[in-house]
């Protein structure tokens, strides 16, 4: 082993031995690890932990008007107010669940169908893939405005086209009863391509032998899909469901752009996110809004934990 004598080392030899333990490689390595992690930890602390702690703190106060205007702590009162509110909070929870389930289930079915169609190469596939990606590239607000123009009950082209096939004019986003289903369909239009891409990626990694063996044994296409492909694709489907499900739960811009504050005149499209935004920016009730957001976060975390456990169990 070669040792290099430096001026520092020479000085060290002259200094009296200290009681401090020698710095081992492991210790230095451990310190270096923390030094390298520090920027990431700082970022997480500043961008995630601080806002979360701030929101939790705010949810325990009666903050109204201005965030820092001498607010008093009210304990869990805001949580109690939210959880006993049957006029806005619980209907918003219901709509959030309906919107998410409806949109994600449809997107998964359609995405899987498209992925199966695109599994084998065909002429013009690149063009189809490019067209399929277009809705993903636009912002939800732009998409909301676009669909508002298309679906306008009086001037929109949708009713014009429906008239050609004898369907009477619909109110779409202008209707109290049709708004949520219409929004779900717009979401399906925008996000099905993402499910297709994710599921297509999963399909391309599947081994071909089991399906070939089933084909030789005389299994039909549907049987091969149900008994061979679907079980092998389960982990990918669950992962896609988690990703899209969490995203769909948080949908805000599309709803706000098309229905405005409160999700429409009868709160018909008011999800938890829209409700929390309204409490914050239309009502300036920061304490209650923070409590709703904390409950919403817990709700999302519970769903993610549940789905991840399902994924892990399925994978094992």
């Amino acid at each position, binding site marked *: 082993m070669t040792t290099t004598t430096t001026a520092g080392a020479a000085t060290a030899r002259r200094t009296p031995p200290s009681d401090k333990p020698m710095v*081992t490689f492991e210790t230095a390595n451990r310190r270096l690890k923390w030094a390298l992690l520090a920027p990431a930890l700082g970022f997480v602390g500043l961008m995630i932990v601080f806002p979360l702690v701030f929101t939790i703190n705010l949810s325990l106060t009666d903050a109204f008007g201005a965030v*820092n205007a001498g607010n008093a702590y009210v304990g869990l009162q805001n949580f109690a107010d939210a959880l006993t509110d049957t006029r806005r909070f619980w209907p918003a929870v219901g709509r959030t669940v309906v919107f998410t389930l409806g949109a994600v289930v449809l997107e998964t079915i359609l995405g899987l169908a498209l992925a199966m169609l695109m599994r084998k190469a065909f002429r013009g596939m690149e063009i189809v893939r490019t067209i399929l990606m277009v809705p993903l590239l636009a912002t939800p607000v732009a998409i909301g405005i676009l669909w508002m123009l298309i679906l306008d009950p009086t001037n929109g082209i949708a009713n014009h086209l429906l008239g050609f096939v004898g369907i009477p004019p619909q109110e779409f986003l202008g209707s109290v009863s049709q708004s949520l289903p219409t929004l779900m369909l717009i979401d399906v239009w925008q996000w099905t391509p993402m499910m297709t891409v994710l599921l297509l990626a999963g399909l391309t990694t599947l081994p071909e032998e089991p399906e070939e063996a089933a084909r030789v044994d005389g299994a039909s296409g549907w049987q091969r899909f149900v008994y061979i492909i679907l079980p092998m694709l389960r982990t990918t489907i669950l992962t896609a469901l988690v990703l899209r499900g969490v995203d769909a739960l948080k949908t805000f811009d599309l709803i706000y752009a098309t229905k405005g*504050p409160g999700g*429409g005149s009868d709160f018909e499209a008011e999800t938890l996110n829209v409700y929390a935004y*309204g409490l914050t920016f239309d009502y300036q009730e920061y304490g209650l809004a923070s409590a709703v957001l904390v409950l919403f976060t817990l709700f999302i975390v519970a769903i993610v934990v549940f789905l991840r456990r399902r994924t892990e169990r399925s994978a094992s």
Partner: protein
Amino acid sequence: MSLPTSPRRAGELSRRSFGVLAAMSVLAACSRGPRTADPNAPLRVLAINHVWTQAISRYLPEIEERIGRRVSVRMLTADQLTSTFNVRLNASATDIDVMTVRPLQDQLLFARNGWIADLTDRVEGDAAYRWTDFQEAPRERSTAAGNVVSVPVVTERPALYYRKDLLEDFGGAPQTLDDMLDIALELQRRSEGFFGYVGRGQRAGAVTQWSSFLYSFGGDFMHEGRSGIATPEAIAAYEYYGRLLHDAGPPGATNMSLEQAMPIFAQGKAAMYVDADAIYSNFLDTSISTVSDTVGFAPFPAGPAGSVPHNIPSWSLAVNEFSLLRDDSWGFLRWASSPEMVARLQSEGIPGARQSVWDDPATLASFPPDLAEAMRINAANGVGHDRPEVMQVGRARDIVGRPLVSGILGEDVASVAADADAEFNDFLVRDNRQREF
């Protein structure tokens, strides 16, 4: 294997010293900087995207020369503006100097939060500014807790827009609300996509326009501090408005605000439309309107209590309490709301709030004559508010708008109004508590 330890060289920082230095640096970075503005900093105006802002922007070199500093104007929509103020002023931002605020929507809350500066001494201590020249209603709406906190720059009333060609057989514009309903019902051909009447129907968005119907039926949002939305007069107004849109209006009316209703009239698909007089130019612009030759303007029709429209200051100027350029900000306000500037802008079609300007017929020359006359009559009869005068206006509008939507949907208004009335009374108790500055 152990690595050789390197002893600290002269001038090298110990870990503890380094930590102290880092902490001090962070504290220094977090501490407030100098509380004076950079001499080269521009005066920042955060304003509504409105014809007033576009017009005043053309004259900015005048004020830039006067205050010796560049003026930077940023325009946003009303919702974006309120959200931006909420976020920026909650953080005591100094990068906004002059704000356009809605005196009937945001001002009271902003004043309570300590976000807008008290201008009382400035407006009253400057004789040349002639504060008393402002019309009484807009002047009253400029105060919060007895202090002047804004100066009005744009006023607004409802106007009845109607198709002259279609209403000729009925003797022109209806004089009463009853006549308006009859004509709307007679002219509508909903199956063919033509409507007798179009107007706002969104829960909160429609409240301001509905207010004129409410007053003309003899009601008001509040009576002596308590809810007035379940009185017979208010229910009659709710039912009338609901019937007008349900029986003679377009489909999807409950999702209609200004942005949805205006194009229907502009494209010739409705016979009558009541909305703010400030939007009249949209119907004269041939690039977006097919009714530019046939549109007529009339005062608000009379109800059982007469013609009682609203006459309000829709936009005012305020100074950010945290601004480092308060004197220059006041210089901007003084210039933008001076008698000369208000006269100039009103001559360009933007109604101001100074009585002396309204008294000069020359400033109304750019308006179509029938619109100028309608504005004059509505201003004379007008009430100074178009929404509940409370701290939390957004929530109040959501409550009082509920029976309005029920009416448009053809539901029983009285029962919904009774429920909304109880909710509104509960709300008023809480709102009054929050008014304690």
